[in-house]
Each structure stands twice: as structure tokens, then as C-alpha cells.
């Protein structure tokens, strides 16, 4: 499991739970202000991430997700909780080149 796969799972789950398009969710989005993510959605997100990645989050990490502010911090929280290797780099994001 890499930070990249965790990020993809978080974004896909957020999109499903909030009704926002995955492509429109960015790391700088504020969870409550931009996406309407409250503690009820966080609980559903934790369950969805476990399902999607077929993992069990470590005991005791749940409470730390409630006061997270942005999508980027949320992704970082999952990466840290799951102890994903940070040495694996995300695939380069290639900007589409205008024809």
C-alpha cells in the first residue's frame, strides 16, 4: 500500500459520501466548508476506507480524524495511521498539454 493508493481511496470515498466529483476534490479543500464533511461523514469514511483497502485501521486512531481540517491533512492522517511507506513516490502528475 502506497501513499498514492491511500490518497486515491480517500478521494474516491469522499466523492461517494459527499456527492462531489472526485476530480474536483483537492488537498487544500477544507472538509467542512468546501465539502460539508462532518463527524458523521468521517465515521462513514473510516468504514469505507477499511472496505476499499481491505485493511483495519489501528485501534485508537479514530479520534484523531474528527478535528482534521483539510483533505490533504486527512490523506496524511490515513497514510500515517497505516504506516504506508513514504519512500514510494506518487506517479508524476502530468499536466495535459494543449494541442
Amino acid at each position, binding site marked *: 500500500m502506497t501513499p498514492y493508493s491511500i490518497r486515491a481511496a480517500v478521494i474516491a470515498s469522499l466523492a461517494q459520501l459527499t456527492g462531489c466529483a472526485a476530480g474536483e476534490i483537492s488537498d487544500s479543500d477544507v472538509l467542512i466548508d468546501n465539502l460539508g464533511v462532518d463527524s458523521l461523514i*468521517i465515521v462513514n469514511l473510516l468504514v469505507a476506507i477499511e472496505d476499499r483497502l481491505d485493511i483495519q485501521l489501528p485501534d*485508537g486512531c479514530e479520534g484523531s480524524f474528527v478535528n482534521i481540517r483539510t483533505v490533504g491533512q486527512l490523506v496524511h492522517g490515513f497514510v500515517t495511521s497505516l504506516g504506508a511507506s513514504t519512500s514510494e513516490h506518487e506517479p508524476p502528475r502530468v499536466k495535459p498539454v494543449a494541442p
Partner: protein
Amino acid sequence: VNRAAPNTTWRPLFVVGTGRCGSTLFSDMIRMHPLILSVSEWFTVLGERSAAEDAPTDAGAFWRLLTIPTPDVAELVERYPALPELKISAAVKSGAASRTVAPILLIPLPHLADDSIEALYELREHIRRHRAGRLAEWHASALSFLARRQGKTTWLERSGGSLAYVDSLNRSWPNARYIHLYRDGVECAKSMYGHPYFRVRVARAIARAPVAIQECLERRIPVEQFGAYWSAVVLRGLGVLKKIAREDVLHVNYSELVRDPGRVLRRVQRFLDGSIEAEDWVARAVTLVRPPGSRVDTYTPATTDGLRRVCKIGMREIARLEAERERGTDPSHTILA
């Protein structure tokens, strides 16, 4: 019982929980205490969070808060006049349509006094004479007045589901103490599913909007979402309680309370006021525990499994609390030992 002088150092004390967690039984037990007034559903009938959040308030506004039902309360009372939580006296019922009854005559005052209307009039006089500028002062003054009226020295308030707005309680009464009552999340969620008050709460939490009550009651909400709501309340509520001084929060497990009430109530007694000996109270209060009745579980194993999955998020947080107690880092547990 060593009767103490009126307790001038009493700090506000709230029993908080997720709702459907056994706090009514606990409240009834405290009601038998010789010195402590046990107030039920004060904030529930007055508007929950909005009534618990401090704000500049004069006597007239406070009186209106106590006596004019919110639209939500009026509608729920009209739709469900037979809800077991409602304690409207016959005299009140005969004199007014249910939706116009003063909120504190619905549950809190009838629990405290047989003459609830008289108590309301006396409270009005107290409010007229009293000077306060903020809502939190008014609440505390009214509850202290009712305690004295009933021959008690102190008070404790318990509203079902108040863990959801314990942050408001904490802002309004920064010196408050808390008894947190908790119970298995699956059991709570199943019970919430069948209760109109929690159906409204959960529907609104999902919609993230003040949906009309009728619409809330008509929505088909999977029971798993009641489990998710329960977990969310636990996560947020415990997040607040963790920031409060450890000696000011007592965590009580409902299943321990019914399994070994004497032991748990002695622990509660020490937390309430260690200087008061009330062994008689413990002896009488334990008699309120009844053996569990046989109940048919109508949920399929798959549904219960789904509930367990969402409730485990909150249950893990509770397991951490219990682990702290086992390690002896919970001060209330240390006192007991």
C-alpha cells in the same frame, strides 16, 4: 446520611451520553439521593444545543425559553403524546393542548415535584427577582432554586443524547463536571432506530439541514446510519471530554451499572461529593435495576454485522477509556481501589 449545609461550592454537574444508553435509569437512581436534585431532559425540551449555548439573556427571554415550546418540541409532543418520557400532569393535560404546554412542564418539573404548576409559578417569581445577564447564569440559578425548593442542596442535569452538544455545555460552564454514561453502540443504535426523537436527529445529521419533522420521520434510513451517528457522537463527545481535567469526568459503563449497581453507585457517590455518606441511598437506588426482559431481536445477522462495523469506530474509543481504567490512570477508578 450526614446532611450537609447548602453547598455553595457546587459546580454544575451534567450526565452526558449518546442517547438510549440507560441514562434515564441512572437519572432515576440519582433522584433518590437525599441531597442532589436530579433534573431530566432540561435541555432536551428547551432546544438542546441552542439552549445550552451561553448568550446574553434577560429575565423575559429566559422565561419565554422555559414556557414557549420550540416548533420541534410542539410538533413531536403533538404527534407522540404517549411517549414514555413525557410526564405531563393530568391538571396540565386538561388545561391546554399538548403542543402549547410549557416545555419544562413536559418532563423536568413533573419529575421533580407533584405540584409542577405551583413549582412553575414559584420559579417565575424567582426569575422576576433574580438578576442575571447570561443564559448559563439563568439556567444555574433556576436549577439551584428548584433544588432548594425540593429540599436538596445541589443539582445534576441529564438530557438524553447530550454528548452531542457537550462542547456547548463546556463553553457555557467551563467549571462543570461530567458523568459520561456509555453503553454498547449496537444496542444504542437499535434503540435509537425505533425512537422518533432520534429518527429526527439522525435524519437531520445525514441531511446536514433542519429538515421538517414529518419528512425526517418518513425518510427510510438504514439502521446502520444510526450506528454511524452513534459513533460520530462518541468521537466528537469524547474529544471534548478528553480536554477536561481527568478528575472532573467520571465514565460509567451501563452494563456494569446493571450488573453490579452497588459498586458503581458507590463510585458515583465518591465522585458526586466524597464528604457525604449516603449508603442508604445506594441501598435504595440499586432496587431500581430490573432483570432484562426477553426482547425479540428483529434484525437479521447481516444487519447486526453491518451495525457492528460502524459502531466499532466509537467502540474502539470507548475501549481505550476502559483500558485506561484497567491501567489505573482513571482517577475515579483509583479512588475506588
